[in-house]
């Protein structure tokens, strides 16, 4: 899953080349605009297209979206339940399925936790201080967005693979990075790193440093200032970043596929298991797992919308 992933992908490249591009595509700015009323003042404006034209446009839009987005989603659930609820539950309680679910949860927990901590740290360094090289640093943080998931996996194979730079050394010490949980965790951490930082940086920049300065002038230490003043102010942005980070961590396919080795029962995450089962024509099982991931996606979207509203409220002018 790549929520906003490559939206920011090329935006990063674009930004590097043309800082004048007005369209910041950070999760926050596009979110901000989108929660404004959907209808511009043009609706109800007599100066709009004639009826038949409107009808055609709406019809095209609706048909297109239905065919390309709604139908695939429906297919997932239809296939999953095509042999009844019994088969559905059975598919989910297979040992391999449970192992995949456990692994996915584990990897997500690791990635989200680490990227949460380091994302906050990076956002603090970038948003609250002035220094040269900031743009470079931000571009670096955005980098995982810019590369194909396969390439994200590739780079780890180059390091840890049997013929990688550290391969022989790892083999000599019987340490397994690739084709084992550490490799999967690393690849997932790589692709999900930017989410928390990118959610926090614009938010913290917008909030400025005044409240922190006030806290310092009142005698608070750095940690006190962070926990008592900064953290409460960024909590919704933090949740937003964590949400997206988690969704991507659980849904990542390409990068994990490259590093995982697809060892049944051991190194298959849920997306990988979907692939394996599908290739074995075990459609019900495959779509059953897929349906779990689809539900995760839908829930993520719902929570994301709620959080976006919260974030917008929080940014209503208060002190100014």
């Amino acid at each position, binding site marked *: 899953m790549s929520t906003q992933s490559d939206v920011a992908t090329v935006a990063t490249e674009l930004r590097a080349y043309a800082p004048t591009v007005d369209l910041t595509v950070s999760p926050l700015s596009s979110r901000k605009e989108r929660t404004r009323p959907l209808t511009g003042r043009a609706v109800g404006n007599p*100066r709009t297209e004639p009826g038949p034209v409107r009808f055609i446009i709406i019809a095209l839009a609706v048909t297109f979206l239905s065919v390309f987005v709604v139908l*695939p989603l429906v297919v997932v659930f239809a296939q999953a339940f095509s042999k009844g609820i019994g088969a559905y539950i059975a598919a989910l309680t297979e040992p391999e399925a449970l192992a995949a679910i456990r692994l996915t949860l584990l990897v997500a927990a690791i990635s989200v936790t680490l990227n949460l901590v380091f994302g906050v740290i990076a956002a603090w360094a970038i948003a609250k201080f002035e220094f040269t090289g900031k743009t470079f640093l931000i571009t670096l943080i955005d980098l995982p967005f810019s590369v194909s998931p396969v390439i994200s996996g590739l780079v780890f194979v180059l*390091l840890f693979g049997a013929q990688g730079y550290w391969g022989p050394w790892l083999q000599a010490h019987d340490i397994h990075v690739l084709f084992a949980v550490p490799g999967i965790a690393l690849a997932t951490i790589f692709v999900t790193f930017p989410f928390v930082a990118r959610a926090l940086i614009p938010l913290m920049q917008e909030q400025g440093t005044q409240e922190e300065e006030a806290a310092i002038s009142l005698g608070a230490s750095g940690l006190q200032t962070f926990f008592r003043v900064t953290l409460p102010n960024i909590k919704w942005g933090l949740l937003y970043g964590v949400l997206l980070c988690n969704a991507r961590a659980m849904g990542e396919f390409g990068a994990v596929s490259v590093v995982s080795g697809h060892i049944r029962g051991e190194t298959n995450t849920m997306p990988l298991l979907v692939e394996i089962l599908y290739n074995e024509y075990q459609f019900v099982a495959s779509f059953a797992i897929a349906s779990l991931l689809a539900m995760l996606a839908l829930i993520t979207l719902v929570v994301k919308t709620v959080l976006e509203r919260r974030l917008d409220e929080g940014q209503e002018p208060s002190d100014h």
Partner: protein
Amino acid sequence: MSIAVARRSTLPGFGLTMGLTLTWLSIIILLPLAGLFLKTFELSLDQFWSIVTSRRTLNALKISFGLSFAAALVNLVMGTIIVWALVRYRFPGRRLFDAIVDIPFALPTAVAGVALTQLFAQKGWLGAPLAELGIKVAFTPIGIFIAMIFIGIPFVVRTVQPVLIDLDVEIEEAAASLGANRWHTVFRVILPSLIPALLTGFALAFARAVGEYGSVIFIAGNLPNVSEIAPLLIVIRLSEFRYADATAIAVMMLLASFLIIFAVNRLQRWAQTRIPAH
């Protein structure tokens, strides 16, 4: 006794947080990147070139870039229509459809892949009627095309949406008062002002489609030279332990992507000078 005071920051923790950030970035991002670069430079220019121009590689790159481009074009057109309908019209279910636009973003790629395959397979809900018409979608380049369209849908829509929402109605009213009919107003006044956003959306959709793996490999036939995408070729080379080949293809992909995005970016800058953005 005048003391020159060293530059300090008001807020504490700069040293610590910068240090930690740089360390983490180095481990997680710089190190892997370094590996990529090192590997690339192990090859001589000749070797690099021969790998990249081998028939299979070239075809894979052509398929990836060509179909991505085409799919991005489709998304450009359809995205414009969709965003127009969502922003300018009222119809039942509008909010729902607006939310639906995000699904290709949110859905794990493997799920999208198997779902699309199932849909367009010979016996699928859409594949069957199409087969009657003699069109085979799954396991052909057409399937790749369809998958790339799917994942690109949100990009044009979401990039253009805020711009369209902010568009000043008075501009349209001015055009109308000057005698322009609706056709003129839309195509000469409104759409041109959307061009920078449209180009950005296009570039984003294109870039995403080029690198896409999960959504595509199920519905693609994955036949070398016919329906094999570049990312898949990279994976295959890795499994063959031909790391150098894999790296070369990856680097080629990155270079080509950067070039195309750069070009689109230039185009966009040019468009912005001609058509001042908001």
